[in-house]
């Protein structure tokens, strides 16, 4: 069988394709996946509170990430515009990453202390109230839909398995913090937290 080539044997076609395509896994993917400890060692990241975590899942579910990035590149004008450039250790608790690929709206990595909660509320209810030409959708329903908090504990447990250091005590208290809060308020708590953990690290 091995005297044939990939144009004559389906077996050789399959195997040779797998082998050739897999080199990149070995060189590019695996070496980065085994560096977790090294990356964590440099990190300033703090885990989200239960309410912020619930807000992050609202952000995901509404698809804010398709228009907003959370990755400031280390280029001077970009840092001027969006704040401190991301470092590798910043996102160790970001399961999954929310870097995005399109800046239809501004980068939100460091949006945390830019606006008041009231501004965020008005903006989410109708962006054109504050920016007349804005092409961002309005999200009024976020302020009528209320979170039950039923799944927050299992979310935190899953994240703990993945490496976020939530304590048993925090998990126990989580549901009461989330229950009854509107999606919009949770989302705002999340937005206001963005960039705070790395704010002390401003050398450039």
């Amino acid at each position, binding site marked *: 069988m091995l005297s044939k080539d990939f144009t004559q044997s389906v077996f050789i076609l399959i195997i040779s394709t797998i082998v050739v*395509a897999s080199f990149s896994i070995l060189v590019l993917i695996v070496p980065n996946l085994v560096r977790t400890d090294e990356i964590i060692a440099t990190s300033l990241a703090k885990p989200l509170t239960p309410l912020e975590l619930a807000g992050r899942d609202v952000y995901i579910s509404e698809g804010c990430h398709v228009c907003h990035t959370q990755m400031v590149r280390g280029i001077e004008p970009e840092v001027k515009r969006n704040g401190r450039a991301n470092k590798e250790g910043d996102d160790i608790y970001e399961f999954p990453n929310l870097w995005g690929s399109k800046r239809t709206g501004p980068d939100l990595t460091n949006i945390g202390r830019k606006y008041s909660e009231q501004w965020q509320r008005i903006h989410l209810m109708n962006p054109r109230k504050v920016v007349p030409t804005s092409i961002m959708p309005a999200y009024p329903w976020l302020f009528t839909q209320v979170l039950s908090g039923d*799944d927050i504990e299992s979310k935190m447990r899953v994240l703990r398995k993945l490496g976020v250091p939530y304590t048993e005590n925090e998990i126990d208290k989580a549901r009461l913090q989330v229950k009854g809060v509107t999606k919009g308020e949770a989302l705002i708590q999340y937005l206001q937290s963005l960039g705070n953990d790395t704010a002390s690290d401003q050398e450039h």
Partner: protein
Amino acid sequence: MSSGMDKYDIKVVKYFIIAAVAWSIAGMLIGVMLAAQLYWPVLNFDSEYIQFGRLRPLHTSGVIFGFVVNMLMGTSLYIVQRTGQTRLFNKSLSWMVFWGWQLVLLLALITLPLGYTSTKEYAELEWPIDLLIGLVWVLYAILFFGTIAKRKVHHIFVSNWFYGAFIIVVTLIFVINNLAMPVSLTKSYSVFSGAQDAIVQWWWGHNAVGFLLTAGVIGMNYYFIPKVSERPIYSYRLSVIHFWGLVGFYTWAGTHHLVYSSVPVWVQNIGIVMSLILWLPSWAGAFNSAMTLLQNKEKLKTDYIMLFFMSAILYYCLATLEGPLLAIRWFNMIAHNTEWIIGHVHSAALGWVGMSAIAMFYYFIPRLWGKEQLWSNKLIKLHFWLAHIGIALYAIALWVAGIGEGYMWLAQQENGSLVYSFVEAMDFKAPWLFVRFFGGACFVFGLLIMVFNLYKTVSMNSSVSKEGSADA
């Protein structure tokens, strides 16, 4: 050469092709809707289900998994029979693949507007659907390779290498990228975080492009282009180089999506260098297909199916030149995250994938239903020009919008302060987003004309019309 449908399993192929046509219209109509929302935000209708954030993944999933995958499954199951002179390995398996895949698409159509998403681009579907995809994909692989194994000719035809690579590599990258830990039936978290997750995500993202939108479509074209031009493939050796060039280099290039990000610089640089290298096999393959068409110059002058294929190849050349360029740091600094990238995506998606598909539909659908002639040549001509105008407007508008906003985001005064606010850049590009909307609408209008023309063709009560003569 008419061998009749009893010799091959044609019915499932027809179903796949119909599904592909339906999803091409649906997916691209959603694209036009997105384009409209970016110009008239009221079109989000204050509805949680169709606001841009939830509609966009439905567009990408619809065109990639609905339109393109249905098309590739259908054509591959046909070509593997024809070129191996054998029936499908197992007929019931083929129906399981068909209905399984339509179920995946139906679930996508329901869950994405409801906001169940993993966020990973082109892999947004939540874990239970991923499991279903995995199952259907394995059945498809067994069906495809099983049919190759029982072929009655010695040699495995070129198209089948590319389809084979498409099936195998998509399996590899899909599994690794979608590894997630479930919270509930509708929610999971990726097992990778931050920078590591981004590397895995773009390793998938770029290879979905490389093996779904590129290798698969190339496989299809290596069969249909020689058929349409009535000439053999120009160079066999070039197709071998093309194949190993793509399989060998594509999987390395994903990190060009992460240039200047916080992943290690060496990881970015591999992506950049491999992108530059990719230009070579890409153009070698394009040359091979173009020469196959050019060997029949007479037909190329008058036949719009030939012209659609030729245009597809030219757009492929454009996208695979623009791609390596975009990977270079200086260009990426400007283009990353801007409309320019969207323009690049769609010159390839509409120009290369779309035009190839259109040419294939016009050639294959009449023959699948036992017809030789199109109902109207005038309409295919009209479609040709609508498609070209549509893509040209789309691409030009987004070059202006993308390069413009990319420049405005970075522009600094003498003293280092920024020249433009974000909102100024957004206002600058607004008219160009309208032009893009108009271009997209032209393209979809052309598709509707195609559907009408093909419908008339198939329901014409002329000619031999024994159900599905396999004379393609």
